């Protein structure tokens, strides 16, 4: 399937039945390596794959989306794609229980990758939990372009960090935080990020992790005159742009806010373009000034038990 002008600006996307060639536990997560040459070849850091779960008789119809951790376009087994899975429900438990040689239906690569700076500027990469998965591959590409790369990794506890060793290998400096102080500094990535930006003079901040963290990272980047590029974690039904469930409010080039799909317009957004104040307590409200917002937009979440005012600026 080739993209004609219809797909202009959109990378090639493939559906393929991939073979699991390796699966191993990493802290609280499972690291899967899949043979998927059609996905591996065109993939860029920040893009994701959508995996079918449960096999043919599954009652879980929807795919699960995972940020691509790494690709090896020409490996021993043909191109491989690696993902990191946290078993939180029936679909992800099925994926983490797969044995080598099992088959997984993959669609990808999906979404827009992290934009890379044209000049060799200092960059800071911030990962929360296993949200750090795509950052090591990104770090390697940034350093190949002459950028210096510092990484900040944070999680609730040591077992929920991902890639600390890999970070030390792929970056110029690494700072680790945990909520419980089990390793690194006790606290949040947002506690240490200002200091790292001041020390390194970072011009671009890349982030991947929970929404509240991305909100804080974006605000700190802006306050330090840096550009932020964040990959959001939104729940998706299709991953390919047709279901309209993974939307978030973002400001476009024309200055207007629209509910945009994180699977095709994202998952990477410029942090200062996202209306973070719309997110609170697991809900995202439609900002009243968004294009096409209903008069009662804000009332939707209130009726659902959500907050009537947003708190913003969380961790």
């Amino acid at each position, binding site marked *: *399937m080739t993209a004609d002008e*219809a797909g202009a600006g959109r990378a090639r996307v493939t559906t393929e039945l991939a073979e699991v060639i390796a699966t191993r536990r990493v802290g609280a997560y499972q690291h899967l390596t899949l043979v998927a040459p059609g996905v591996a070849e065109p993939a860029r850091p920040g893009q994701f794959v959508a995996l*079918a779960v449960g096999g043919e008789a599954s*009652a879980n119809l929807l795919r699960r989306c995972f940020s691509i951790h790494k690709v090896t376009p020409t490996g021993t087994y043909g191109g491989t794609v690696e993902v990191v899975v946290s078993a939180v429900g029936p679909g992800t438990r099925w994926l983490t229980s797969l044995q080598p040689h099992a088959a997984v239906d993959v669609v990808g690569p999906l979404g827009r990758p992290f934009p890379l700076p044209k000049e060799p500027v200092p960059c800071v990469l911030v990962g929360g939990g296993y949200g750090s998965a795509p950052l090591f591959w990104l770090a390697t590409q940034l350093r190949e372009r002459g950028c210096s790369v510092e990484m900040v990794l944070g999680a609730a506890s040591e077992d929920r960090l991902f890639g600390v060793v890999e970070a030390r290998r792929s970056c110029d400096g690494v700072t680790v935080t945990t909520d419980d102080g089990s390793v690194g500094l006790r606290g949040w990535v947002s506690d240490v990020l200002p200091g790292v930006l001041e020390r390194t003079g970072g011009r671009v901040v890349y982030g991947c992790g929970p929404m509240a963290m991305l909100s804080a990272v974006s605000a700190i980047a802006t306050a330090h005159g840096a550009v932020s590029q964040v990959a959001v974690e939104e729940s998706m039904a299709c991953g390919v*742009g*047709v279901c309209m*469930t993974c939307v978030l409010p973002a400001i476009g080039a024309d200055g207007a806010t629209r509910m945009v799909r994180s699977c095709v317009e994202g998952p990477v957004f410029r942090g200062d373009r996202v209306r973070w104040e719309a997110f609170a307590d697991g*809900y995202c409200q439609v900002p009243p000034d968004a294009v*096409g917002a209903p008069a009662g937009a804000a009332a939707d979440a209130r009726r*659902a038990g959500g907050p009537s005012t947003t708190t913003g600026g969380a961790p």
Partner: protein
Amino acid sequence: MVDMSVRLGGFTLPNPVMTASGCAANGKELHRFFDVSELGAFVTKSVQAQPRSGRGTPRMAETPSGMLNSIGLQGPGIDAFVAEDLPWLAARGARVLPSIAGGSSTEFASVAATLRGSSAFGSVVGVEVNISCPNVANRGLVFATDPLASAKVTALVREQLPREVPVFVKLSPDVTDIGAVASACVKAGADGLTMINTLLGMAIDVDRMRPQLAGITGGLSGPGIRPVAVRAVWQVRQAMFEGRIPTVPIIGVGGVRTGRDALELVAAGASAVQVGTATFADPLAPVRVRDELAALLEDKGYAGLSDAVAAAHGR
């Protein structure tokens, strides 16, 4: 080779398989996976007079063999639709079945009028009327639950469109007597019926003890609702055989994932079939279902699809 062509209200389609409204966006996304002109028709996302942001998130909850959605008819509005989406589909050679919606019967009519005025109207092989919208004039009661309101919308839309362009009214299964609504719509000028829209459902997050969807309730779709679709198609087709409803073609929709599922709706009385939620799991589902249906009809020795329509009624 089985003759897969189907005649629907004056237009002959090369095959009976269509996308389902709201499950395929407006074509560009799926065109990355297959040529949209391969389908019998491409059914677009319901479009209203003005741009609509839709609801806040979460908009989706997975259910056993299906999902709930609460999108809120997010869309660009009819002016942008006729300026961009319809010409794009027309340029790909797609046969288009635009789905229209409104909060009042006059809004439906004005959307139909704008559609008729489009330079790309030649690509339109019919208009689907989504009457599962809240009627602003009647305390938000959904048009589809009221035969009189459904008939009024049907008549006003019919009036706006050239005679040769068929009007298909999409019925809701959430009614006591779907035959009464079907009859009212056909008598008001509907050239065909699409059955069924989603069922109203709800899911509660028992960890947080609150509704899962920001919109509280949502539309239930997917293989889990297929028996409801089969029942509705059967009942209305039966009423046509008995002369209680004038005979018009039925487009079956609801939980179709395979060619076998499609054949079930055909055998119940559908002349054409739409593939909806299955597309979220498999972007190739519409063309796969078409091929599976053709192979199945061939295996069963049918010369043409039309011979299998309503075959389970044993007439």
